[in-house]
């Protein structure tokens, strides 16, 4: 059978199968018709648009429309797509990466577009099993399945996704409580006025906002009934959703020499400091001189443009990543979001 070509060839590897990764792959293919291009994604799902998931939950978008590209797309563009395969380590000196099943893959260029995974603050880890997060397709399906049976939902933490989900919940006629505290808008911590504004917007929508409260305990009464304590207040809800933002899926990069904070630290050209290694999407954290602060980009449109820029720079260009969308200022990082404005 046809084996993959020998290692020494040009081989671009993209880790991640989100908007950034796919855009990067496509850009590379357009620029370099000959190169080997491989996309590796830990998820088993094929490419979908995560920002549509709330609408999917709301029932305003059918499942198939959430998917972005058919597998045919990868065949025609000769992009090797590897689903359900996890990268566990990268060796930048040898320029190869190690997959969970102990395969080693050489790369000549690498783009990290791994996105993030839901974060649960350490103090809440004890309740982990009782909290429902919202990131992947299968998360969304879990929500739908649960929402059939419950009509009251508590959102804790509060982040950009939570606003969209809340919108969906309201459309479904659910009763929504919202414990909004300084953890809101992870991966960033906001100035008070920012989430006062958010609290205001939420209450306008008929959400019961418990401002500045801390979640103290969650206990399961039965499958669809939970008792919650937020500071002194105690009440029951059918489902508790945790929205403490995303932590980038970069554990596997630890000790690889890449400096990881909330995401992979990159310069304005999205370069990681290693030749031929770039990061894009919301796992990339850039210090931006205009804003005089670090920022991460959230949302589909930003991801796409970053993916494109990373790919072009990998091929030798020197484009600078410009923040788009509305900027929320916060104490240690800024966020550029292309989609919370419409809330």
């Amino acid at each position, binding site marked *: 059978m046809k084996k993959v070509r020998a290692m020494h060839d040009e081989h671009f590897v993209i880790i991640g199968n989100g908007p950034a990764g796919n855009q990067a792959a496509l850009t590379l293919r357009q620029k370099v018709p000959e190169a080997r291009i491989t996309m590796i994604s830990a998820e088993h799902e094929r490419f979908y648009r995560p920002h549509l998931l709330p609408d999917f939950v709301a029932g305003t978008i059918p499942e198939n429309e959430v998917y972005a590209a058919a597998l045919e797309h990868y065949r025609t563009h000769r992009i090797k797509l590897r689903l359900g395969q996890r990268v566990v380590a990268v060796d930048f000196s040898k320029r190869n990466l190690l997959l969970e099943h*102990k395969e080693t893959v050489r790369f000549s260029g690498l783009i990290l577009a791994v996105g993030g995974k839901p974060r649960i603050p350490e*103090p809440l880890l004890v309740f982990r099993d009782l909290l429902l997060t919202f990131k992947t397709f299968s998360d969304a399906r879990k929500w739908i399945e649960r929402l059939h049976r419950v009509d009251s939902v508590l959102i804790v933490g509060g982040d950009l996704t939570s606003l969209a989900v809340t919108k969906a919940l309201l459309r479904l006629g659910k009763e929504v409580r919202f414990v909004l505290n300084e953890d809101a808008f992870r991966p960033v911590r906001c100035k008070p006025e920012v989430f006062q504004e958010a609290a205001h917007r939420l209450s306008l929508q008929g959400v019961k906002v418990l401002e500045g409260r801390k979640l103290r305990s969650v206990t399961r009464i039965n499958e669809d009934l939970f008792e919650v304590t937020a500071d002194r207040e105690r009440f029951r809800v059918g489902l508790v959703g945790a929205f403490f933002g995303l932590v980038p899926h970069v554990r596997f990069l630890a000790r690889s020499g890449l*400096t*990881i904070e909330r995401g992979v630290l990159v310069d304005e050209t999205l370069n990681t400091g290693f030749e031929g290694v770039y990061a894009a999407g919301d796992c990339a954290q850039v*210090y931006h001189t205009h804003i005089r*602060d*670090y920022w991460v980009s959230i949302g589909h449109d930003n991801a796409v443009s970053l993916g494109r820029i990373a790919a072009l720079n990998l091929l030798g260009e020197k484009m600078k990543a410009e923040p788009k969308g509305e900027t929320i200022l916060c104490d*240690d990082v800024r966020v550029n979001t292309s989609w919370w404005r419409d809330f």
Partner: protein
Amino acid sequence: MKTKGAYPAENKDATVEAPAVAYSTDAADAYYMDVNVPCQSGCPAGTNIPAYIRCLFEHRYDESYQINRTANILPGVLGRICSRPCEDRCRHGELELGRPVNICHIKRAASDFRRAPLNPERISPSMEKTIAIVGAGPAGLAAAHDLAAVGIKVTLLEAFDEPGGMLKYGIPRFRLPRDVLKAEIDAILEMGIKLKTGCRVGPDVSLQELLDQHDAVLLAAGCYVPRDLGIPGEKLPGVLTGLNMMMDLEARRLPELGERVLVLGAGFTAFDCARTALRSGAEDVAICIRRTEEDFTVTEDEIFQAKKEGIRILPLMTSSRILGRDRAEGVEFLRTRPVGFGPDGRRRIEAIEGSEFVLPADSIVVAVGQKPAPFPFPGGGNSDGRLEVSPEQIQTSISRLYVAGDYRTGPSTVIEAIADGREAAERIAESLTGRIFRQTCVRQQDTKATDRERSWDYLPRQEMPTVEPAGARLEDGAVEVETGFSREQASEEAKRCYLCYLHYEIDLNRCIYCRYCIDVAPRDCIKLVSRIHLNDDGAVVGLEETANWREVNAVVIDNSRCIRCGECVRVCPVDCISVTRVERVERIHEKGASHA
């Protein structure tokens, strides 16, 4: 005609000839130990880790403890607060082999479960030699112990009211219970050491007097002067140094800290301070660091426990000044960013111009390390009052005056200090008596057993049980957070140790190259080799592999890859694989060995 039937009696001779023991000081063997027994060579005090783990597995807790004690003096203490350089090097932590053995906590188990009282070993009868040791911290205690052991009369001077140094005044009780500390210190003092507490060199007694009254003096006074940031506002009320905070805590005179506390610093002390602040009523505690989390020197457990208690970690910022009029109100920071790599392979960090921002705070703890106190030397010292001693030196420019521990090396870890104290003791004893009492060498003993079952390689790492944050843990600062392994947990964890002190080897004179061993090998640890590369000491540093049958000159076991599962020994048709137990040990010479 004697035809062997199909069912011969299984009478394989069970007689095992007495295992040969050999001691070696060969450089090549030393190199071998460094490469192939990573944990022991990773330990500054050279603790014989595989040996004590094996003992613990066999529930011989006293022996396990003793093996520790001979090397690191304070096993019970280290089993809790050691910085664990060994675990970073544990082969079990190698890629695809899972996570390191929980070496440190096994050490603690040995101390928790030992029954016998501590009986410090005496190497030789007491003699008419005396020494004064200044500072009863880890280094001083270690030195005192070793010198007393060889019969030298030791006087231990301690400026504080009680011995222990940083162990007592630098580490909070919730990490190191005082009874544990006391027990092990007492055991040392029982060796006939005279302890004078509250006795400061300078005010109470001069260095010259000490030199006159003793054959030698060892300065192990540690580092007790907190370093400062050298930024405006540091002297404002509400700004504490990490060390002072710890000492105040121990002295039960910790000031009110307020709601919001910022800790500047990234070491153990910074974490101790942050967690202490939380325990004394602060609501919102954050540790501000210049780099990122992955650059911390503290253990992952430490970070996790801190976060679990609710402490925030704010990376990539460096303080530029402390704000406030008559009391500190906040800190102004600059953002930092990584730029290129330093010689140490870590990223270099630089502050970004014009990126100032402010974080408000009620108290600010500066925990950026300490330096030695200035000292009244005869003839004075250098600018910061220290003597000129190059890091290697222990003997100072003043005859019969020696230095050791943090005082010599600058701030270091406890295990390093202990190792340094012992090193000093050895040199001093040698120069006072002209004899060598201890000699580090490689002990080799033939053995048949591989002592392990293959399935043990798959056991998960035992995690240290802790008290949950809610309740006593955060209310009472004296509640030890880590509750220690149970006997079962301990020996489960002990099973995981590969026992790297076993050396596997193929005898080429008998090998028939049948590759049976390679067939059963758990990983690429046995190799078809065409050539072997040595270093100048004659130690094996490289195996040249080949897949070409004609070029296969040898089948060689690569002990740096071997996980000692023993499968190869079990299958070898011609029994040409030998197992040798090799350990770096201290040989004791009762009467002491003269030079030459």
